[in-house]
């Protein structure tokens, strides 16, 4: 049984939504993409943070739009 699957099935995380698993992906993509653009560690971290916020911001916006569209459904 998958580790994450097992964890998600535990009573404490009974309502665990798999969407949260996209956040580590967003972190990794931001870091690796920024690292491939620049060499300076500070700049990499700064740009990665910005990119992560952009990605999560976009995801949040899409989520809010879908939430609005599904209101009262």
């Amino acid at each position, binding site marked *: *049984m*998958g*580790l*994450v*699957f097992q964890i*998600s099935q535990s009573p404490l995380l009974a309502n665990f939504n*798999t969407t949260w*698993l996209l956040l*580590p*992906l967003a972190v*990794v*993509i931001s*870091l*690796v*993409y920024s*690292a*491939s*653009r*620049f*060499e*300076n*560690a*500070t*700049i*990499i971290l700064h*740009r990665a943070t910005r990119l992560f916020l952009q990605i999560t911001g976009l995801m949040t916006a899409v989520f809010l739009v879908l939430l609005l569209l599904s209101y009262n459904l």
Partner: protein
Amino acid sequence: MQNPDQRLSLKTPWLAALLAFLVPGMGHIYQGRFFKGALYAVCILGTFLMGMCMGENKVVYFSREPGQSTYGYFSQMMVGLPALPALVQTRRYQDPDNAGVSMLDSELSASFRGVMISRTANDRAKKEMVSGQISLRPEQGDFGPVVRGTFVGTDEQGNAVTLQLSEPFDLDKPIAAGEGRYLEADIVMGDEKRLSSVGKLEGVIPRAWINRFEVPLGKEDLEDLNGRLGKYYELALVYTWIAGLLNILAIWDAFEGPAYGYGDEVTQAVQPVVVAGAPSSPSTGGSDSHPSATGTSPRVAHAPDKKPHVPPSHPSTTPELG
């Protein structure tokens, strides 16, 4: 190929790229870029391993079977050594010698768990879970070689169970994705001369890790995984795909250096350096690209995302891009 910054030594770029392909981050460590090497290793390998864990180590394999093709493997493959065994395992899996057997070449001894199906007096089947040690060997029977052996273990209540086993015997192929190798044999009673079947033993013996790691999944294995893990299996695939795709960026970084330069050019932009032969003007930009893209060294540096304003009539300092 141009080194984007004099502070950066790419050493032997093709070797660095090869190392970066084999082990994410290794190429950068070879070049002495330890921060990036560690970052790539942690991020890419971490994502890949997270995907593997989520999918019970059954998400990375290569198959071209109709309806079960895994073209996503080509992105997983870019993670390098962690995914490359799948190519060898596919060949081993598809080898004609990898088949189920009904006869043993040598003695087989392994732990076993499964079901003991015994026939009762009124000819009804009684099933009991058992676990223990199974031992089988080829013997010479009256009409040729046969498989015989014993099972010693316990049932669910902890009662000792000892069974005598004989043919018909069936053992699953040695190389497959499942953790257990299916085994089936008849439970017999009587002496050597006259054995009579009283039931059947069905279950699995462990399959060696080397014989199941990154081996193509059969249709039943795939359905079982999808049924149990559901969307986690899909997510596991996505994690491993993305890890491979991200390593392409890392490989290119090891080969060519960072796409936009060192990154601190914004601090140098206060005192721009004039490129030899170019008109000396405070606004010497004119390029639409980032510093490293011009390929000139030393270059006029500017913030990567804050392009200097250039009047339309101003001559460009980078003719190839102007």
